[in-house]
Structure formats: structure tokens, C-alpha cells
């Protein structure tokens, strides 16, 4: 058996990697690139890396690679930002509840999906707000300026994701409306918000908006930033969804109208289920973009995952030649893990829906 497999293996390699002169050259070139990039990277991050220690001294060896003790020492800040140490258990509860809820939704076998989704969208945000801000039930107040790290990154990303899809759908439908006022308002909103850099929106939300609002009427700076993020990604989402809406043949709405269904039932039961399915890759793309754009919040004075690392890099207690690099590699890996997870999950959903259409539920 092994002889046969290895024979097949050899044949596969010959047919796919060395079938022609050009193919052989490309294969060798590819291997060379992998060798030149991967080997030093692994060498630096794993082989020559320093794995334990409690000060910068351990990382000062000129031959040393990544300085992982720095990450370990900073882990608290990376996860919680400057959230009060004594109150970090509140953040832990938020993380655990959120993780349970999302896992419940993602595992196809578990029941009562709608109930869990409804709880996640209604009760959970209230719990999050109460736990994180405090101020009632004897919980100490923790101002939003102290929230940071992974907590802040996930909070901003989750808020953006949860709000941008419904707002984006509403905008896309409005843009296709027969009512001119609705249609032009949607177009104006989408084109203005999409035509402005996110940083500009964030600056406006954090600095300009308070100037316009009457005295005493102001929202928390983080809330203003969250609104800016939501509106920005909604505008993008609207265009993604519109692409899906346009792909639905006219015969679908005609058939539905001919059956006596009204606008909302046609939209909700016939058009959107098909349109959204078509644009899952675009939706996930927007989510991933949004997730990475959360790092821009550091520009208006918040310390998100990247902000925390950047401030840590400047810490003289950990000044080594590899500190900053280690920090960035770590943050990059965390972002990549979340985005890749999102993308894989979306892929699984697409496969499942495709199977459902072929009746292999």
C-alpha cells in the first residue's frame, strides 16, 4: 500500500509541479521564496526566541529572537487595557457570556437559535453595558477612557458588525425605493459617508460633534466613536447588499406579487434571503475590514489592542531591539486569527446553504 501511495505521490508531483520547464521554474522559485521567508521567520519567532524571564535583561542577547516575556508581562493590558485590575472579573464575565452565545449560534446542532440570537442582541448588550460601566448594583464606575486592549477592539468590532448589517440592508432597500425622497436620502448618506475617510469621521465624532451640540447635551466619546464606526460600515454594507438585490431576477418579485404578497413580505421572504446568501463573501469582507479598522480608534485617544502594544513598545523597562517587533507580530497574529476564523465560518455557512439548496440539509 505504501509503495502504491508513494508512487501516486511521485506521479502527482511530476504532473502538477514539474510538468514543463516553466512549471518547474515556478515550483523552484516558489520553494526558494518559502525558504527565504519562512526559515528566518520561524528561526526568529520560535528557535532563537526568548520564552521566559521577568525583565528586559533576558532579551538583550544580540543573538536573541522574539522577546515573548514582554507579551507575557503586558498580557493584562493587552486584554483589558487600563481597566481597573480589581474589576477585571466583570470583563471576564462579558467575554465568557459572549463566547458562549456565539458558540451556541455557530454550532449547528444546538437548539433554540432564534432565542439565543434574540438574547445576544437585546439582553446581552445591557449586561455588557452594566458590567463594563458600573455605577449601579454597587459596581464601581469604570470610565470608558480606561477600557482598552482586546476588550475595546472586540467591543467596537462587535458593535459595528451587529449594527452595520441591519442599517446597511435598510439603506440598500431605501436606495432602491420608488419613493424619491427616501431614495435620494439613502444615496446621499451612502455617498457622503463612503466618500470620507474613516479617520475624518472619527475626528468629527470625537472633536467636532461636541461643538455643534448644545451645552450639556453630549454623549460619551466612546459612544460617539461607535456611532461613527457603525455608520461608516453601514454605508459599505449597503452597497454590498445592493449588489445582491440587483442579482435577484425580476421574475422572482413578479411571481411573488402575482401571488398577492405585499412589499414587505416579498422583500423579507423572497428577495433578501436570496440576496444576502449571494453576498455572504462581500458581507464577511466588510466585517473583516471593519475589524481591522477598529485600530483607528487609537487615533482619537483610545488604547485598543494595537494602541496598548504601541504604548508598551515605548516602555523603557522593556526596551530591547526586538520588543516592538514582537509586539506587532503578536497583535498581527491575534487580528489574523479573528479574521481567519470569521472567514472560515462564513465559508462553512456558504457550504451549508449550498447543500440546503440541493436538498441535502
Amino acid at each position: 500500500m505504501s509503495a502504491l501511495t508513494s508512487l501516486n505521490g511521485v506521479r502527482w508531483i511530476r504532473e502538477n509541479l514539474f510538468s514543463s520547464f516553466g512549471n518547474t521554474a515556478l515550483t523552484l522559485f516558489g520553494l526558494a521564496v518559502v525558504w527565504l521567508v519562512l526559515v528566518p521567520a520561524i528561526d526568529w519567532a520560535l528557535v532563537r526566541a526568548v520564552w521566559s524571564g521577568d525583565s528586559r535583561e533576558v532579551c538583550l542577547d544580540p543573538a536573541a529572537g522574539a522577546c515573548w516575556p514582554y507579551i507575557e508581562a503586558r498580557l493584562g493590558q493587552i486584554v483589558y487595557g487600563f481597566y481597573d485590575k480589581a474589576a477585571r472579573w466583570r470583563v471576564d464575565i462579558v467575554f465568557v457570556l459572549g463566547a458562549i452565545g456565539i458558540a451556541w449560534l455557530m454550532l449547528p446542532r444546538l437548539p433554540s437559535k432564534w432565542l439565543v440570537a434574540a438574547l445576544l442582541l437585546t439582553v446581552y448588550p445591557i449586561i455588557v453595558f452594566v458590567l463594563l460601566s458600573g455605577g449601579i448594583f454597587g459596581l464601581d464606575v469604570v470610565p470608558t477612557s480606561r477600557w482598552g486592549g482586546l476588550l475595546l477592539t472586540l467591543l467596537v468590532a462587535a458593535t459595528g458588525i451587529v449594527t452595520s448589517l441591519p442599517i446597511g440592508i435598510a439603506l440598500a432597500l431605501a436606495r432602491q425605493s420608488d419613493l424619491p425622497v427616501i431614495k435620494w436620502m439613502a444615496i446621499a448618506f451612502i455617498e457622503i459617508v463612503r466618500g470620507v475617510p474613516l479617520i475624518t469621521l472619527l475626528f468629527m465624532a470625537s472633536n467636532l460633534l461636541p461643538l455643534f451640540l448644545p451645552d450639556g447635551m453630549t454623549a460619551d466619546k466612546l459612544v460617539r466613536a461607535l456611532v461613527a464606526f457603525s455608520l461608516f460600515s453601514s454605508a459599505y454594507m449597503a452597497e454590498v447588499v445592493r449588489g445582491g438585490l440587483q442579482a435577484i431576477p425580476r421574475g422572482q418579485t413578479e411571481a411573488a406579487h402575482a401571488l398577492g404578497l405585499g412589499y414587505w413580505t416579498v422583500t423579507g421572504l423572497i428577495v433578501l434571503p436570496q440576496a444576502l446568501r449571494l453576498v455572504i463573501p462581500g458581507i464577511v469582507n466588510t466585517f473583516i475590514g471593519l475589524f481591522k479598522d477598529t485600530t483607528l480608534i487609537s487615533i482619537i485617544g483610545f488604547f485598543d489592542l494595537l494602541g496598548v502594544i504601541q504604548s508598551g513598545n515605548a516602555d523603557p523597562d522593556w526596551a530591547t531591539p526586538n520588543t516592538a517587533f514582537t509586539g506587532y507580530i503578536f497583535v498581527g497574529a491575534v487580528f489574523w486569527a479573528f479574521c481567519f476564523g470569521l472567514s472560515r465560518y462564513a465559508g462553512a455557512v456558504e457550504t451549508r446553504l449550498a447543500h440546503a439548496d440541493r436538498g441535502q440539509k
Partner: protein
Amino acid sequence: MMSDSPHAVEIRKISKFFGGFQALKSVSLTVDHGERIVICGPSGSGKSTLIRCVNRLEEHEEGEIIVDGVALTSNLSHIEEVRREVGMVFQQFNLFPHLTVLENCTLAPIWVRRVPKAEATSRAMALLERVKIPDQANKYPGQLSGGQQQRVAIARALAMNPKIMLFDEPTSALDPEMIAEVLDVMVELATDGMTMLVVTHEMGFARKVADRVVFMDAGEIVEAAPPEEFFANPKSERTKLFLSQILGH
């Protein structure tokens, strides 16, 4: 409930324009309850546009249409009232691909007529039985042949218990071997006394079930007559030419 209105459909001098092109030129047609009308004519003659005006998938610009006593105007509740009573079958089937065959047939009764789900399901199953595909109920439209899909489309329209059925070239997109299975269902429906307006080139079907055959050309009704008369003695030259073209080979 039997309607008090004297006619199933009354079309009075309607005109329809697509931009500068006049698709219907002051067309009038009265259809009695239980009457079966076959509409034929060359492509672009306005026959599809005519029946699409009956359930307001197209808006007519001049004249009036009264369907079962309800005048079709821009009044949305009148339009929805008419659409509840008028079923339509399309050339391209237009089944909902994300719903099963059964769900296709129960959707409108549940959401428009507020029929309880169990009742809608048993009624849909009876209709699928009638169009001879009850065993496909839980499949998706994409898994069915064209003929099967069109029969589902008929069952879907019948599930609303319509008084009038519109057929817009129901067999034109089908492979030849599947045309008969769809026509059989339509013949059965006609025998049961359904009011039908059928746009088709299936002259055998017209001979068999039509009370009147209507020939349209260039946005006008050229002639309308019972099939025996229509096929034996066409009055107009245009009708003769058309018949010779489609029956000639």
C-alpha cells in the same frame, strides 16, 4: 363565494406604452366566468403584455380593466385584492429557489390568506397530488425537471384558490418531451371550469379546450373566434399568414 360581477375580466380600450413604443393599442376583451381564452400571435404582438395587465404586473395607461368587479387603478388595496384572486404561471416558472416545493406552495396562503400552516400544507399536498408530483414536495426547485417545475408553479398559483388563471407561454421554455405533462394539467384545470387566459402557441391545446381563440398582432386584437371557426375560416390575412407559419410544417 360566487361573484356578482357579470364578467370575470373586462378589458375596455386599454393602451400601454413602453417609452415611445405602443405595445397595446386600445384593446378590448371581455371574459366570462368559466371561459377559456387562448391568445396567440407573433412575438412582440402584445399578448403577454395584455395578460400581465390583468394582474397589474404591467400598468395600462389608457382605458380600464375590471377584474371580477374590481377596477384596476393605482389603488394598492384593489391591486392586492385582484392579485389574490388571479393566479399566474410564467414562461420561466419563477419558483422561489430557496424554498422547497411545498414551501413554494404554502407561502402565499400562509402570508396572504392567513391560512394556518397545517391546513396550508395539507392543501398544498393535495394540489401537488393533482399535478402528480407529491413525492417531490420536500425537494428544492433546482432539483426538478422543467416540466416538474412548471407543474409546481401551477400548484403554487392554485394554492391561493384563484378564480382566474393567467398562463404566459407556460410551455415555451420546456423541452419537447415535457410539454405534454404540463398541458395535461392545464386541460384538467380547464375541464374543472377554471376561468383561464392562456398565451400559447400550442394550437392543439387551443382546439381542445378554448372557448375562444384570440389572435393579436402589433398591439391589436385582429380577430377572436371559437376554435373551429378560427382554424377553419380565419377572416384576416394576418391570421391566415400566422396560422400557415405555425401549422405549415
